[in-house]
């Protein structure tokens, strides 16, 4: 529902960090949620340790941090439905699509490279 005449650009958020060791993953998620207000074509890429952001069964009581993994399931309601996960990154970590808490598209490294190349803006976290 872009305004008439509004320019819709393709934005990709590239997530490469595990969720709790640094603030990158949470910061990325917050920017993604804010970006949803601008009616742009937003996609998320998860590669390298970024695939750990989506693992099921996160439970942060013991480390006294906020478990923000349920928020990835809210993205659909924000009309952010393009979530790409790197096949190779899953395999290197012994993970499969079933270990992830949201529906994603698993893509090869080559496909991921193509997706990145077709963006207007890439934001890396």
């Amino acid at each position, binding site marked *: 529902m872009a305004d008439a005449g509004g320019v819709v650009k393709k934005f990709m958020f590239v997530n490469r960090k595990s969720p709790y060791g640094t603030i990158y993953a949470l910061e990325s998620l917050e920017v993604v949620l804010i970006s949803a207000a601008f009616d742009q074509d937003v996609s998320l890429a998860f590669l390298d340790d970024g695939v750990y952001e989506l693992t099921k069964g*996160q439970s942060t009581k013991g480390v006294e941090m906020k478990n923000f*993994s349920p928020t990835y399931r809210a993205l659909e309601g924000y009309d952010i439905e393009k979530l790409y996960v790197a096949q190779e990154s899953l395999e290197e970590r012994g993970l499969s699509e079933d270990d992830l808490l949201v529906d994603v598209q698993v893509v090869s490294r080559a496909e991921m490279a193509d997706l990145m190349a077709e963006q207007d803006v890439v934001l890396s976290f």
Partner: protein
Amino acid sequence: MLHTVNKSPFERNTLKSCLAHVKPGSAVLLIEDGVYAALAGTVASDMVQQAMAEVSVYALGPDLDARGVANRVIDGVKVIDYAGFVDLVIEHPSTQSWL
């Protein structure tokens, strides 16, 4: 000596460097993102399993739980809680934190 590693083995060479410097009989405790090295079936698992022949490897349970990976730990890696962390520090005359 107790060595702690808090970086993911997929992102940094911290664990690799640590394991290259540990003496037999030492203890390696994986904490924070270091716990990803304690998991079976990854490209880092072999490195840890080889090290376990000479050193004791521990992983901090609350950090495994936070990341949703507590059910994937390599057999023989001992999962401990914060009290166990304190015990390890007391048991060993010195601690080196690999950052």
